[in-house]
């Protein structure tokens, strides 16, 4: 129970992938988990599912669009009003829209950059004052293998957003590291889930996963294990790190 009595917010926690797996892992480790997602019905369903497993008082579901500052501030306020603290923030909300750079529409650029970067900015800003006051915090952003390697399928906006997380985590670490707050990134490779098949060309994910040394894609639970470690007290000396978890698909 590495996260006993910790209060953790996970964004985009009601999908089929890393967010939900992380919420579940955190609850298993004893944390109180705030399941937030932009999808209202799924937020409730996921929260209900986890409540039935971990108890009514351990899980809260809050619908939250991370690109909407009011939504984010209201979500953080509800958490702070109820628990008086927030220990862990997992910035997992992300969007990707595929287009070659010369064809990207302004609105699509904005959707990707705003969800990944501005959402992270809003959520982090909303919890940092409380973390400074309590002199403890763990912030983990979900980056991607796309930080390090390009692809020809139209991911410039996504790669930009994910790589921005490196500068963000490291710069903020320098400002708030003295308060016992760590900010790190996790950069997954190919972690298949049903939603991703709607974004990428058919067969692409599978082929790429097979080309890794371990010859398979990763499981959301495997990424959640890494996130839980970074979110624990044990990882307090890991600061401004971007940790790859990609089955060796790209080795720095």
């Amino acid at each position, binding site marked *: 129970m590495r996260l006993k009595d910790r209060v953790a917010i996970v964004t985009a926690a009601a999908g089929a992938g890393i967010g939900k797996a992380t919420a579940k892992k955190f609850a298993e480790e004893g944390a109180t988990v705030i399941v937030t997602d932009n999808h209202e019905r799924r937020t409730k369903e996921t929260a209900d599912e986890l409540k039935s497993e971990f108890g009514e008082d351990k899980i809260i579901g809050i619908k939250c669009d991370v690109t909407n*500052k009011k939504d984010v501030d209201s979500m953080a306020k509800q958490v702070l009003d109820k628990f008086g603290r927030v220990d862990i923030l997992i910035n997992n909300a992300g969007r990707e829209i595929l287009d*070659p*750079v*010369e064809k*990207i529409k*302004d609105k699509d*650029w904005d959707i990707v*950059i705003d969800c990944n*970067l*501005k959402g992270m*900015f*809003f959520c*982090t*800003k909303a919890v*940092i*004052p409380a973390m400074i006051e309590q002199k403890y915090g763990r912030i983990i952003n979900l980056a991607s293998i*796309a*930080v*390090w*390697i*390009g*692809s*020809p399928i*139209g*991911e*410039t*906006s*996504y*790669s*930009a*957003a*994910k*790589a*921005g*997380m*490196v*500068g*963000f*985590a*490291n*710069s*903020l*670490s*320098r*400002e*708030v590291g003295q308060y016992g707050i760590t900010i790190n990134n996790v950069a997954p490779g190919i972690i298949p889930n049903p939603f991703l098949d709607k974004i990428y060309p058919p067969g692409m994910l599978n082929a790429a996963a097979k080309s890794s040394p371990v010859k398979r894609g990763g499981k959301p639970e495997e990424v959640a294990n890494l996130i839980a470690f970074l979110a624990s007290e044990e990882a307090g000396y890991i600061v*401004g790190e971007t940790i790859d978890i990609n089955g060796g698909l790209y080795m720095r």
Partner: protein
Amino acid sequence: MSEESNKVAIITGASNEVSQEIAKELAKKGTKIILADKDKEKLEAAANEIKSAGADVLAIECDVKSADQVKDMIAKTVEKFGKVDFLINNDWTNKPSSFLDMTENIWDEVIDTNLRGPFNCCRETVPLMKKQKFGRIVNIASVTGYTGSISNIATNDVHFSTSQGALLGFTRCMSSEVGRSKITANVVVLGFMDYPSLHDIYEPRAIKSGKALITVGKMGTPEDAAAAVMFLLSDEAKFVNGETMLVCGGGYMR
């Protein structure tokens, strides 16, 4: 005549020290140069200096944040010179602010100029380069994209560091998209550079802290930056793609 002599180059943020140096070097090679900058007065001064060196220069007032202004800038370039061979994205801004005081407006201003700006310029230029099957894109970024601020003292730039990291990812990915069209896209990653505008951003003790990290014992100069850019623009560099070239005096090592 060098291979650069019939080439056309766009430099954004044309009035800053590094852009000026790049323009001077390109002028020596006979490259036709488009200087783009949002500050009309500074742009005119910069253009006059490069013109006096005998270069064929077109100065265009352009705020790279604005997709329309960038479109217009590219249209004027094509109208005058018929093509774009080199795109050097070097317009940037930094509005120091502690994270706690960082407003959405400040965040937007920095991200829009430093990230959307280069995106806007690439979006308009890549189709032209694809058609002619040649192009060199050099984005100029700061090492803060890797390190997050320069040091523990020279901070208050989470937004800036975010934008610089993003520019690295953007360029790496774009290089994979455009490489087969004989276009390269690379980044020159600058460390702590010794030029006047640095003092508008950082306090003396912050500059001292950044300086202390540099292994070669002195801060970089616009000439150091321009040398790296000129290499990446050259024919010799045609096999260099998606590279983030550190020009930071060993102040940061991957």
